[in-house]
């Protein structure tokens, strides 16, 4: 059967000509990867939603103004925008981590609580959900390499260049990320087994 799927580059030129459906298709193709990249950096569902909108709006403006010049490389381009916006936000939040509400509570705790309740309502004890949580707990440098390699499809050399470290440091961070995730999943499965046998 003939493959009639249009490439990203073809969709982009259609969109530039005013074909709105072409943009919907691009969004449909890449929205989850963009969202995953942002979410794993900022670790907050609602903030990730806002930032995803910001990323795509920036992309729309750039394309519409004729400034987009990376034909055929739409995904790495938009993932770079996503990464930069998410990292900026993450660092800003780290500098100003506390927003105290009228009742004295921290607004970030409120958001985190809301997010947890949504998540727990969806899938409990699912490996991927657990993994998502464990990635959020990784040290920043390890999480950054993991996101860049898995979701932004950057090579270790590109990651090393982008983060101003040697390739061995980038590889070491990835290795420690895998070791930490393996350890956390193992601990979790041991804890689950103990609870199971206790019953």
């Amino acid at each position, binding site marked *: 059967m003939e493959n009639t799927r249009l490439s990203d580059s073809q969709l982009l030129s259609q969109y530039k000509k*005013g074909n*709105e459906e072409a*943009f*919907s298709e691009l*969004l449909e193709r890449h*929205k*989850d*990867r*963009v*969202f*995953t990249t942002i*979410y*794993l950096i900022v670790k907050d*569902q609602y903030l990730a*939603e*806002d930032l*995803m*909108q910001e990323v*795509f*709006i920036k992309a*729309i*403006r750039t394309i*519409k103004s004729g400034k987009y010049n990376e034909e055929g490389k739409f995904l790495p381009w938009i993932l770079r925008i996503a990464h930069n916006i998410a990292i900026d936000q993450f660092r800003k939040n780290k500098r100003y981590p506390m927003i105290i509400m009228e009742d004295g509570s921290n607004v970030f705790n409120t958001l985190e609580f809301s997010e947890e309740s949504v998540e727990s309502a969806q899938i409990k004890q699912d*490996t*991927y959900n657990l*993994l*998502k949580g464990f*990635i959020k707990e990784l040290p920043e440098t390890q999480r950054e390499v*993991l996101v860049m*390699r*898995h979701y932004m499809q950057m*090579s*270790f050399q590109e990651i090393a260049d982008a983060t101003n470290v040697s390739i*061995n440091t980038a*590889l*070491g961070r*990835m*290795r420690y990320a*895998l070791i930490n*995730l*393996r350890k956390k*999943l193992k601990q979790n499965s041991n804890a689950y087994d103990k609870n199971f046998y206790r019953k």
Partner: protein
Amino acid sequence: MIKTSTENELIRFLYKESSQNEETEINRALAEDKDLQEDLFSFSAMIEKLNKLTIKAPERAVNKILAYARQSDMESA
């Protein structure tokens, strides 16, 4: 004990970024080192899980982006 350089090479190998020579080297190291073999399988399983992990973008955010795209189309028409 596994050398750190070998451990890092294993990571490159798993992500298919090794050169032909590095692949030969890591295969040789794997044949001699049980700990490295254990890492190969457990890391490979973890990488597979990570590759499958995608978080679904919320519909309301997607709809807002589409609305913005439509609006900007109308403005530029």
